[in-house]
Protein backbone atom coordinates (compact mmCIF):
# COMPACT_ATOMS: atom_id res chain seq x y z
CA UNK A 1 0.00 0.00 0.00
CA UNK A 2 2.69 2.39 1.07
CA UNK A 3 4.60 1.30 -1.98
CA UNK A 4 1.80 2.34 -4.31
CA UNK A 5 1.52 5.69 -2.64
CA UNK A 6 5.22 6.30 -2.92
CA UNK A 7 5.25 5.46 -6.60
CA UNK A 8 2.52 8.02 -7.10
CA UNK A 9 4.48 10.68 -5.27
CA UNK A 10 7.67 9.95 -7.14
CA UNK A 11 5.78 10.35 -10.39
CA UNK A 12 4.29 13.63 -9.19
CA UNK A 13 7.61 15.01 -8.06
CA UNK A 14 9.35 13.96 -11.24
CA UNK A 15 6.56 15.58 -13.22
CA UNK A 16 6.83 18.81 -11.27
CA UNK A 17 10.60 19.02 -11.39
CA UNK A 18 10.54 20.52 -14.86
CA UNK A 19 9.81 24.21 -15.49
CA UNK A 20 7.99 23.59 -18.78
CA UNK A 21 5.70 21.04 -17.17
CA UNK A 22 4.94 23.41 -14.32
CA UNK A 23 4.15 26.04 -16.93
CA UNK A 24 1.84 23.63 -18.71
CA UNK A 25 -0.06 22.98 -15.47
CA UNK A 26 -0.39 26.68 -14.89
CA UNK A 27 -1.66 27.12 -18.40
CA UNK A 28 -4.18 24.31 -18.04
CA UNK A 29 -5.31 25.86 -14.79
CA UNK A 30 -6.55 28.78 -16.86
CA UNK A 31 -8.06 26.82 -19.74
CA UNK A 32 -7.98 23.42 -21.38
CA UNK A 33 -5.68 23.29 -24.37
CA UNK A 34 -4.68 20.97 -27.17
CA UNK A 35 -1.15 19.65 -27.46
CA UNK A 36 -0.75 21.86 -30.54
CA UNK A 37 -1.76 24.96 -28.53
CA UNK A 38 0.66 24.05 -25.78
CA UNK A 39 3.51 23.34 -28.20
CA UNK A 40 3.01 26.76 -29.77
CA UNK A 41 2.78 28.54 -26.46
CA UNK A 42 5.96 26.98 -25.16
CA UNK A 43 7.70 27.17 -28.50
CA UNK A 44 8.31 23.45 -28.74
CA UNK A 45 7.83 20.67 -31.25
CA UNK A 46 4.64 18.62 -31.03
CA UNK A 47 6.69 15.55 -30.13
CA UNK A 48 8.48 17.40 -27.35
CA UNK A 49 5.24 18.68 -25.85
CA UNK A 50 3.62 15.29 -26.16
CA UNK A 51 6.40 13.80 -24.04
CA UNK A 52 5.85 16.40 -21.32
CA UNK A 53 2.11 15.81 -21.37
CA UNK A 54 2.69 12.06 -21.11
CA UNK A 55 4.75 12.55 -17.97
CA UNK A 56 2.05 14.77 -16.44
CA UNK A 57 -0.64 12.33 -17.41
CA UNK A 58 1.19 9.39 -15.87
CA UNK A 59 1.47 11.33 -12.63
CA UNK A 60 -2.28 11.89 -12.71
CA UNK A 61 -1.80 15.65 -12.89
CA UNK A 62 -3.28 15.97 -16.36
CA UNK A 63 -5.90 14.05 -18.28
CA UNK A 64 -6.18 14.04 -22.06
CA UNK A 65 -8.99 13.23 -24.39
CA UNK A 66 -8.70 12.69 -28.09
CA UNK A 67 -11.53 13.97 -30.20
CA UNK A 68 -10.93 13.43 -33.89
CA UNK A 69 -7.34 14.40 -34.44
CA UNK A 70 -7.09 16.82 -31.56
CA UNK A 71 -5.89 15.74 -28.13
CA UNK A 72 -7.25 18.08 -25.48
CA UNK A 73 -5.45 18.36 -22.15
CA UNK A 74 -6.98 19.38 -18.86
CA UNK A 75 -5.88 19.42 -15.24
CA UNK A 76 -6.16 16.01 -13.65
CA UNK A 77 -9.23 16.54 -11.55
CA UNK A 78 -9.24 12.94 -10.55
CA UNK A 79 -6.54 13.64 -8.02
CA UNK A 80 -8.35 16.62 -6.57
CA UNK A 81 -11.53 14.63 -6.29
CA UNK A 82 -9.64 11.86 -4.58
CA UNK A 83 -8.33 14.32 -2.06
CA UNK A 84 -11.75 15.82 -1.49
CA UNK A 85 -13.22 12.38 -0.93
CA UNK A 86 -10.66 11.28 1.65
CA UNK A 87 -11.02 14.52 3.55
CA UNK A 88 -14.75 13.90 3.59
CA UNK A 89 -14.12 10.39 4.91
CA UNK A 90 -11.85 11.78 7.58
CA UNK A 91 -14.52 14.32 8.49
CA UNK A 92 -17.19 11.64 8.72
CA UNK A 93 -15.01 9.57 11.02
CA UNK A 94 -14.56 12.49 13.40
CA UNK A 95 -18.19 13.41 13.04
CA UNK A 96 -19.21 9.92 14.15
CA UNK A 97 -16.82 10.07 17.09
CA UNK A 98 -18.00 13.49 18.15
CA UNK A 99 -21.65 12.43 18.03
CA UNK A 100 -20.77 9.70 20.50
CA UNK A 101 -18.74 12.17 22.54
CA UNK A 102 -21.86 14.37 22.74
CA UNK A 103 -23.57 11.54 24.60
CA UNK A 104 -20.69 11.19 27.05
CA UNK A 105 -20.68 14.96 27.65
CA UNK A 106 -24.46 14.97 28.27
CA UNK A 107 -24.12 12.13 30.70
CA UNK A 108 -21.30 13.80 32.62
CA UNK A 109 -23.27 17.02 32.78
CA UNK A 110 -26.28 15.20 34.21
CA UNK A 111 -24.09 13.40 36.71
CA UNK A 112 -22.47 16.64 37.81
CA UNK A 113 -25.87 18.20 38.33
CA UNK A 114 -27.06 15.29 40.46
CA UNK A 115 -23.82 15.27 42.46
CA UNK A 116 -24.11 19.02 42.95
CA UNK A 117 -27.66 18.63 44.19
CA UNK A 118 -26.60 15.89 46.61
CA UNK A 119 -23.84 18.08 48.01
CA UNK A 120 -26.26 20.91 48.63
CA UNK A 121 -28.73 18.67 50.39
Amino acid at each position, binding site marked *: *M*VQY*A*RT*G*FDASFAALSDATRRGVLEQLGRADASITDLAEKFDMTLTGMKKHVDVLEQAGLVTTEKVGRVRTCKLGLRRLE*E*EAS*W*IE*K*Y*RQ*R*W*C*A*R*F*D*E*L*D*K*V*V*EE*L*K*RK*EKIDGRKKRE
Partner: protein
Amino acid sequence: MDARRESEPTMKNDTTVERKSERELVTTRTFNGPARIVFEAWTTPELFKRWWAPKSMGMSLRSCEMDVRVGGKYRLEFEHDAMAFFGTYLEVTPHSRLVWTNEEGGEGGPVTTVTFEEQGGKTLLVLHELYPSKEALDAAGTGAADAMVETFAQLDELLLTLGASVGRS
Protein backbone atom coordinates in the same frame (compact mmCIF):
# COMPACT_ATOMS: atom_id res chain seq x y z
CA MET B 1 -36.31 26.47 32.89
CA ASP B 2 -37.51 23.51 30.90
CA ALA B 3 -35.64 20.60 32.41
CA ARG B 4 -36.62 18.18 29.68
CA ARG B 5 -35.28 20.33 26.91
CA GLU B 6 -32.09 20.85 28.80
CA SER B 7 -31.42 17.18 29.28
CA GLU B 8 -31.97 16.26 25.65
CA PRO B 9 -29.08 16.91 23.33
CA THR B 10 -29.95 19.78 21.03
CA MET B 11 -29.23 19.67 17.33
CA LYS B 12 -25.89 18.16 16.47
CA ASN B 13 -23.12 20.64 16.00
CA ASP B 14 -21.21 20.73 12.74
CA THR B 15 -17.83 19.12 12.30
CA THR B 16 -15.65 20.97 9.84
CA VAL B 17 -12.34 19.85 8.38
CA GLU B 18 -9.94 22.03 6.51
CA ARG B 19 -6.63 21.22 4.91
CA LYS B 20 -4.99 24.31 6.22
CA SER B 21 -1.67 23.74 4.50
CA GLU B 22 0.22 20.96 2.78
CA ARG B 23 1.02 19.45 6.16
CA GLU B 24 -1.97 20.35 8.33
CA LEU B 25 -5.53 19.24 8.85
CA VAL B 26 -7.74 21.26 11.18
CA THR B 27 -11.02 19.89 12.52
CA THR B 28 -13.41 21.95 14.61
CA ARG B 29 -16.50 21.04 16.60
CA THR B 30 -18.51 22.68 19.38
CA PHE B 31 -19.77 20.68 22.36
CA ASN B 32 -22.66 21.66 24.58
CA GLY B 33 -20.75 21.41 27.81
CA PRO B 34 -17.95 23.03 29.75
CA ALA B 35 -14.32 22.44 28.76
CA ARG B 36 -13.54 20.51 31.91
CA ILE B 37 -16.12 17.87 30.99
CA VAL B 38 -15.01 17.55 27.37
CA PHE B 39 -11.41 17.34 28.55
CA GLU B 40 -12.36 14.62 31.01
CA ALA B 41 -13.90 12.59 28.19
CA TRP B 42 -10.60 12.81 26.26
CA THR B 43 -8.36 11.87 29.14
CA THR B 44 -10.27 9.16 31.05
CA PRO B 45 -9.79 5.76 29.39
CA GLU B 46 -13.25 4.40 30.31
CA LEU B 47 -14.91 7.47 28.79
CA PHE B 48 -12.57 7.71 25.82
CA LYS B 49 -13.28 4.11 24.88
CA ARG B 50 -16.96 4.89 24.59
CA TRP B 51 -16.66 7.40 21.78
CA TRP B 52 -13.35 6.91 19.98
CA ALA B 53 -14.44 3.83 18.07
CA PRO B 54 -18.06 4.42 17.09
CA LYS B 55 -20.04 1.51 15.72
CA SER B 56 -19.98 2.94 12.21
CA MET B 57 -16.23 2.37 12.16
CA GLY B 58 -16.93 -1.32 12.43
CA MET B 59 -14.36 -1.86 15.13
CA SER B 60 -14.25 -1.48 18.84
CA LEU B 61 -11.41 -0.85 21.24
CA ARG B 62 -10.25 -3.82 23.19
CA SER B 63 -8.04 -1.80 25.46
CA CYS B 64 -7.13 1.77 26.11
CA GLU B 65 -4.25 2.85 28.31
CA MET B 66 -3.48 6.51 28.88
CA ASP B 67 -0.86 8.04 31.09
CA VAL B 68 -1.99 11.62 30.60
CA ARG B 69 1.01 13.74 31.58
CA VAL B 70 3.93 15.21 29.67
CA GLY B 71 6.06 12.32 28.46
CA GLY B 72 3.36 9.79 29.35
CA LYS B 73 2.33 7.15 26.81
CA TYR B 74 -0.99 6.03 25.46
CA ARG B 75 -1.92 2.87 23.65
CA LEU B 76 -5.21 1.97 22.00
CA GLU B 77 -5.76 -1.57 20.82
CA PHE B 78 -8.54 -2.63 18.56
CA GLU B 79 -10.12 -6.01 18.71
CA HIS B 80 -7.91 -7.13 15.87
CA ASP B 81 -4.58 -8.02 17.40
CA ALA B 82 -2.53 -6.19 14.85
CA MET B 83 -4.34 -2.87 15.13
CA ALA B 84 -2.86 -0.55 17.69
CA PHE B 85 -2.44 3.18 17.97
CA PHE B 86 0.15 4.58 20.29
CA GLY B 87 2.24 7.61 21.10
CA THR B 88 3.41 10.06 23.72
CA TYR B 89 1.80 13.10 25.30
CA LEU B 90 3.94 16.16 24.62
CA GLU B 91 1.78 18.75 26.37
CA VAL B 92 -0.99 18.41 28.91
CA THR B 93 -2.76 21.55 30.15
CA PRO B 94 -5.86 20.53 32.10
CA HIS B 95 -9.14 21.61 30.51
CA SER B 96 -7.49 23.50 27.68
CA ARG B 97 -4.81 21.72 25.66
CA LEU B 98 -3.44 18.28 24.77
CA VAL B 99 -0.62 17.48 22.37
CA TRP B 100 0.44 13.96 21.46
CA THR B 101 2.42 12.04 18.88
CA ASN B 102 1.03 9.26 16.69
CA GLU B 103 3.78 6.71 16.41
CA GLU B 104 2.06 3.65 14.97
CA GLY B 105 2.83 4.78 11.45
CA GLY B 106 6.56 5.26 12.04
CA GLU B 107 8.07 8.61 11.16
CA GLY B 108 5.19 9.69 8.97
CA GLY B 109 2.73 10.08 11.84
CA PRO B 110 1.28 13.47 12.70
CA VAL B 111 1.49 15.42 15.93
CA THR B 112 -2.04 16.03 17.18
CA THR B 113 -2.94 19.15 19.15
CA VAL B 114 -6.39 19.47 20.68
CA THR B 115 -7.50 22.73 22.26
CA PHE B 116 -10.64 23.16 24.36
CA GLU B 117 -11.96 26.70 24.47
CA GLU B 118 -14.95 27.40 26.68
CA GLN B 119 -17.43 30.04 25.57
CA GLY B 120 -20.60 30.53 27.56
CA GLY B 121 -20.85 26.98 28.84
CA LYS B 122 -20.02 25.49 25.44
CA THR B 123 -16.65 24.23 24.29
CA LEU B 124 -15.06 24.91 20.94
CA LEU B 125 -12.76 22.02 20.20
CA VAL B 126 -10.01 22.41 17.61
CA LEU B 127 -8.13 19.31 16.55
CA HIS B 128 -4.99 20.09 14.63
CA GLU B 129 -2.91 17.41 12.95
CA LEU B 130 0.52 18.41 11.73
CA TYR B 131 2.28 15.90 9.49
CA PRO B 132 6.05 15.87 9.04
CA SER B 133 5.66 16.43 5.30
CA LYS B 134 3.11 16.90 2.55
CA GLU B 135 3.83 13.37 1.37
CA ALA B 136 3.06 11.94 4.79
CA LEU B 137 -0.33 13.67 4.86
CA ASP B 138 -1.07 12.60 1.31
CA ALA B 139 -0.11 9.03 2.16
CA ALA B 140 -2.42 9.07 5.17
CA GLY B 141 -5.15 10.39 2.92
CA THR B 142 -4.69 8.02 0.05
CA GLY B 143 -5.40 5.54 2.66
CA ALA B 144 -2.61 3.47 4.09
CA ALA B 145 -4.53 3.56 7.39
CA ASP B 146 -8.03 3.22 5.98
CA ALA B 147 -6.96 0.52 3.61
CA MET B 148 -5.59 -1.37 6.59
CA VAL B 149 -8.94 -1.22 8.33
CA GLU B 150 -10.67 -2.42 5.21
CA THR B 151 -8.14 -5.18 4.80
CA PHE B 152 -8.89 -6.45 8.25
CA ALA B 153 -12.61 -6.26 7.64
CA GLN B 154 -12.14 -8.30 4.49
CA LEU B 155 -9.93 -10.76 6.28
CA ASP B 156 -12.65 -11.16 8.88
CA GLU B 157 -15.16 -11.96 6.20
CA LEU B 158 -12.79 -14.39 4.61
CA LEU B 159 -12.20 -16.15 7.92
CA LEU B 160 -15.94 -16.36 8.47
CA THR B 161 -16.40 -17.87 5.03
CA LEU B 162 -13.58 -20.32 5.61
CA GLY B 163 -14.94 -21.19 9.04
CA ALA B 164 -18.35 -21.77 7.56
CA SER B 165 -17.05 -24.02 4.82
CA VAL B 166 -14.88 -25.99 7.24
CA GLY B 167 -17.90 -26.40 9.49
CA ARG B 168 -19.92 -27.75 6.62
CA SER B 169 -17.42 -30.31 5.40
